[in-house]
């Protein structure tokens, strides 16, 4: 895959500069770091929300900075968790005294680096707590292993926790609502083509013209099973079935996210959505919100993921709350 970049070594820094240059009224880079914060951070008396991870997932995570969502995004190298010193800078920049919640996706690297930063911040007297998102049902949820990955469902955690924080909730309340989302959100993805990390220069895996990988993550890694490429309806069925088998959604109302991984046209995402909505209707599961688009990508990987979040009155209201985040305006 060809890249429109200058130098793989500076791709992340060039991106950050281009991003902040595009939206100077909303975003600010902390000088000398790869941390992007909400222009007006720290917001007085508000709990600060910090997320982040490797880059290559754009619009995640900087696209979710804004009123009603995140206060900071820590940007790592491509698919590489940022380091504790960077996360610490973010925590310090957004702490108004009301404490800071870290929204971490469940990857060994992310968890370790963010936790180390939290320890450092606590040592500096900042109140820090964390939640770990692990919505990917493709991976077994076992304590003996690394456990489930955090994928597109993370965006809904950002949205809901962000709305809660914006309403003036305490750190504990914001953490609790984030945990509530995590408890009720499930995702699963499929890839029809891999991606190329700029510095690696070659595709992370290869698929034949008639193959797909089921249960992929968002780092260009292979999935849990290689299969013959099937129709959009069959793919949607397979992903949704796995999600519905994992958590009891009976008599629930849900928010749906159909997330593009990078190079899959929006047309195809809507085609997938058509089947997903049909399946939910069959199961008599009501849909409160649907989000179709690129929310959590893996560079130019082709494919998509389906996310379902169980919602109630509280979560629906928080989903509907205003947000000025570039990639999630409400």
């Amino acid at each position, binding site marked *: 895959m060809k890249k429109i970049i200058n130098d793989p070594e500076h791709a992340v820094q060039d991106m950050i500069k281009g991003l902040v240059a595009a939206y100077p009224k909303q975003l600010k880079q902390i000088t000398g770091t790869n941390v992007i914060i909400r222009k007006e951070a720290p917001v007085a008396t508000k709990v600060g929300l910090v997320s982040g991870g490797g880059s290559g997932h754009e619009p995640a995570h900087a696209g979710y900075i804004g009123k009603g969502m995140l206060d900071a995004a820590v940007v790592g190298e491509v698919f590489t968790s940022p380091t504790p010193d960077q996360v610490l800078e973010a925590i310090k920049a957004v702490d108004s005294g009301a404490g800071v919640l870290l929204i971490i996706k469940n990857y060994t690297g992310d968890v370790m680096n963010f936790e180390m930063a939290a320890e450092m911040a606590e040592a500096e007297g900042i109140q820090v707590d964390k939640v770990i998102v692990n919505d990917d049902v493709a991976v077994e949820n076992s304590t003996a292993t690394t456990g489930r990955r955090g994928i597109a469902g993370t965006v809904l955690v950002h949205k809901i926790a962000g709305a809660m924080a914006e309403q003036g909730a305490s750190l504990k309340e914001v953490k609790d609502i984030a945990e509530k989302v995590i408890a009720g959100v499930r995702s699963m993805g499929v890839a029809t083509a891999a991606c190329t990390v700029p510095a*690696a220069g070659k595709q992370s895996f290869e698929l034949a013209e008639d193959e797909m990988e089921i249960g992929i993550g968002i780092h260009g890694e292979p999935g849990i099973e290689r299969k013959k490429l099937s129709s959009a309806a069959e793919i949607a069925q397979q992903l949704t079935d796995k999600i519905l088998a994992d958590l009891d959604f009976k008599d629930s109302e849900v928010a749906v996210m159909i997330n593009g991984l990078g190079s899959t046209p929006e047309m195809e995402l809507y085609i997938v959505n058509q089947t997903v909505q049909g399946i939910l209707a069959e199961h008599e599961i009501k849909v409160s919100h649907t989000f179709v688009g690129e929310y959590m990508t893996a560079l130019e990987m082709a494919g998509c993921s389906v996310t379902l979040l169980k919602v109630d009155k509280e979560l629906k209201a928080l989903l509907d709350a205003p947000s000025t985040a570039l990639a999630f305006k409400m």
Partner: protein
Amino acid sequence: MDHLQVNHVYQWMQITNDKIQKNKETLTSLDQAIGDGDHGINMARGFQEVMNKLDTENYEHVADMLKDIAMTLMSKVGGAAGPLYGTAFLKMSTRLKEQDATYGNFSQAIIEAVNGVKQRGKAEIGEKTMVDVWSAVADQMSKENHFSADLIVNTAKEAMESTKEMMATKGRAAYLKERSVGHMDPGSVSSFYLFEALAEVIAEEG
């Protein structure tokens, strides 16, 4: 060799860095097979920064040098490998604080490093991670009483190769379950380079 001195640790890092730069693509390919394809890139960036750091500072004590190595790896590697390698060197630094890096102290330091890595990553032996190489070397060293290049390199090599047939239960490779079998663990390979470099320093000194 009687004990590791500042110049030895410098050489150790220099040789490690050379190996990692030379094998950057190998590491990345291994990580593409069962991970996310950045291990070579991360390690190459991190160890280059280590050399940049060591070249601008003067060290009297091995512990100080190890601490700077730790902090550089921690803040430049990222991903899973960054905190783990960082922790390993930090633990070594702490153990050797105000001590000479005699064989006894140094092999103790490696044990502390392994314990630190295990704790940080919550991995045990046999989970197809760098713990497999570090533990094997620490174990072997604790049974000896003098620096032996051959023993270190052979132990590390064998441990690295043993990861090939393991099914991963920690790290990214765990997502692949059975499909992780048949590939060596990238972090174990980079750890092998590190111990191979150490062995070369020891051999050089005789």
